[in-house]
């Protein structure tokens, strides 16, 4: 069962002017963050259940909270040869840098759009393959690129593609890695100067 009241409580506490403006002592700031993180976790369970019900398929939904610093165990693992490791029980896998993620040859990306108008949004996911095939909810191919990261940076390069989602709705995109011999493998077109 998901529960949004934990986040509601945390946000209610964070109405205090200290939380809004950052004028609290450090240990208080840490506690605000702890409460908000606990609220996020239980809300993500709620969102996962809703997505399973709406999309009609059970999934280990993963919320990569550190995508802004290119950390997402699922997409980074999805490029390796799949091993025997099974998925995690239930609808929802814990997130976090060391979350055990099944190694799968492909993964799906769901984009939820909270605005009341159609939205196109750039997706940027850390991967360590060099080429992927992305298809949209209608099964149509979506242009994608694996952009070389900074020289001498860790091997996780960003996979880029433009995703669109309907008003107050979500779209599901399927991403699968192309082997070097795959005829769909486009020539690398990225220049780094």
């Amino acid at each position: 069962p998901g529960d949004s009241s934990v986040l509601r409580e945390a946000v209610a506490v964070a109405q205090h002017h200290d939380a809004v403006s950052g004028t609290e002592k450090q240990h208080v700031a840490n506690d605000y963050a702890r409460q908000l993180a606990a609220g996020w976790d239980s809300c993500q369970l709620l969102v996962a259940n809703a997505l399973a019900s709406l999309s009609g398929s059970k999934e280990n939904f993963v919320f990569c909270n550190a995508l802004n610093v290119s950390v997402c165990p699922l997409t980074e693992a999805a490029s390796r040869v799949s091993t025997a490791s099974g998925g995690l029980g239930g609808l929802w896998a814990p997130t976090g840098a060391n979350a055990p993620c099944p190694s799968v040859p492909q993964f799906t990306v769901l984009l939820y759009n909270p605005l009341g108008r159609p939205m196109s949004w750039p997706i940027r996911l850390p991967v360590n393959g060099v080429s992927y095939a992305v298809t949209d909810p209608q099964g149509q191919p979506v242009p994608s690129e694996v952009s070389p990261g900074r020289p001498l940076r860790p091997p996780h390069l960003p996979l880029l593609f433009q995703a669109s989602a309907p008003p107050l709705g979500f779209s599901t995109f399927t991403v699968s890695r192309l082997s070097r011999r795959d005829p769909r493998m486009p020539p690398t077109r990225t220049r780094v100067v």
Partner: protein
Amino acid sequence: SQPREIQNEHVRVLFDPLTGHLKEIQNLDKSISLPVFQSFYWYNASIGNDKSLQASGAYIFRPNSSEPIPVAGSKQVSTYLVKNALVQEVHQNFSSWCSQVVRLRAGQPYLELEWTVGPIPVEDGWGKEIISRFETTLQTDARFYTDSNGRQVLERRRDYRPTWNLSQTEPVAGNYYPVNSRIFIKDKKFQLTVLTDRSQGGSSIFDGSLELMVHRRLLYDDNRGVGEPLAELGADKQGLVVRGRHLVLLDTVESAADRHRLLAQELFMAPYTVLAPGGGPSYRHG
């Protein structure tokens, strides 16, 4: 050799071939261009002086000089360019603790600056307040515009208050205002708007300029009740590293709002990405 330019259908961005800094933004749809220099600086946080004992702290922003210090020092910015069908970006390295990606995605009519700042070094014993500053040729006549509390955009005038006669004692801090979603400067024809992905302090300290404070690390309490300096540490006990984005739009004054109003909503209520291994069993209702 430093990269010269990146572009997409709507925008072209030129870089200074010698210093690697942003040099000009061109709106290709409207055939307008504006020289824009952008870089990172830091204000030296005051610890109190003969005029006032007030130190910079969690409640108070008070630099000890009106002149901020360039993060990159006199060095040029080291850069490299990435180009493919979906994105063109210039990675700029201002220092070991300050970098930025200037990004143009296919089809987007704005420039994205993804900045990463921290851990702010304080071994020199100075608290630092880091800003991203834009300098243009716009004749702004001491005016700039910020949305205070996200409700409405208010006109701000340097060293002036509409409701009382201000005798300015803090030439920088006295001109800083809350920015929740956007700050812009304009002249009679063009407007440069910067959208923020979080609340920041912002100002226009001299005509044609615009600045936003992206990070702070201080060493003294400001004696207003917290009882400790604003010096948040990360899990590694180093100063916090912060990453964020500024979206930069150049447009005519008449049509600037069309763009920034919708884009600010998208930034504030950004779509949410959820991932899954795929191929799970069907979900039976009930």
